């Protein structure tokens, strides 16, 4: 009891250091901020994705959706790509 009181008076233990809270919140918010990439970069990302995937399967290019998703404190690139047909061999047209 007394020690706890003294600790509270004299300083905090590391677990409740508010700078760690600040750092973690900042890290997360910056991941999101930095992900708002320019539309033309998003477009070229989509084009590149289509190029690569088209080697393996026929896809519906108009239905392609690419978004960022942040869940559980982590960030992911989500691509929703409707497949029309699988290709038998690599690069078949």
């Amino acid at each position: 009891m007394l020690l706890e009181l003294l600790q509270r008076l004299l300083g905090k233990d590391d677990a409740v250091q508010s700078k760690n809270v600040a750092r973690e919140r900042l890290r997360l918010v910056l991941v999101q901020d930095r992900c708002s990439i320019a539309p033309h970069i998003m477009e070229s990302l989509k084009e590149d994705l289509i190029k690569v995937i088209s080697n393996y399967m026929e896809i519906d290019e108009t239905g392609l959706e690419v978004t960022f998703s942040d869940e559980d404190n982590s960030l992911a690139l989500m691509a929703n790509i409707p497949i029309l047909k699988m290709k038998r061999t690599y690069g078949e047209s």
Partner: protein
Amino acid sequence: MGEVIVVTSGKGGVGKTTTTANLGTGLAKLGYSVVLMDTDIGLRNLDVVLGLENRIVYDIVDVTNGHCRLKQALIKDKRFDGMFLLPAAQTKEKTAVTPDQMVELCNNLRQEYDYVVIDCPAGIEQGFKNAIAGAEKAIVVTTPEVAAVRDADRVIGLLEAAGIKEPQLIINRIRAEMVKHGDMMDIDDIIDILAVELLGVVPEDSLIVVSTNKGEPAVLEAGSKAGEAYRNISRRLTGENVPIMPLEVNEGIMKRLRKLIGMK
């Protein structure tokens, strides 16, 4: 050929104007010729921080509109012969100046002066775009707070996109005591997050309020810790290698008590 440096931050109230005033004065004290330019049109403040508010006749918009010559609008400092202020307009719109005009203005100034230090308005809109248009170097000011560091990150991205490579960071108003107790982000935390070069660290100093009251930049105050930090940063700007000042914690009664009972 002089160097044009813009002082920016994104967030307001982190000390852009104070930093501009002190670095400009610091450079003038080192013997360089300096123009301090206030681009915060509508909210001019650099004049009062420098104590030159009573001498304004023409402003930056008068120059870009051709109402006066550049030399007529430059206000000579009362302390240093080589230091001048180009004040912002107080009653005009931010759109009264265009980025092209700023480029031309900066090019004219760099022909004649060693340094042009630009005080950028808060925000990332037209005023910001104008302020950075003619600069080749940028100083980003932040404080050790989440909101200020976040805005600094955004501004660093915009500066780099505008072709101003490798902006340098000043961490302002750091409080050694709070850093020590883990209640304020320290220098390494911020540099790690922003991934930029550190130009300097300015401790929180109540003498800044006093010097602003008087219109005398703290960089001229021998006894001011913040002033000392600004003197060091000014020297770094000229290419001198000056080590970062260590954060100093006043040994308070609590610390002595803690030592006495053997904690930490």
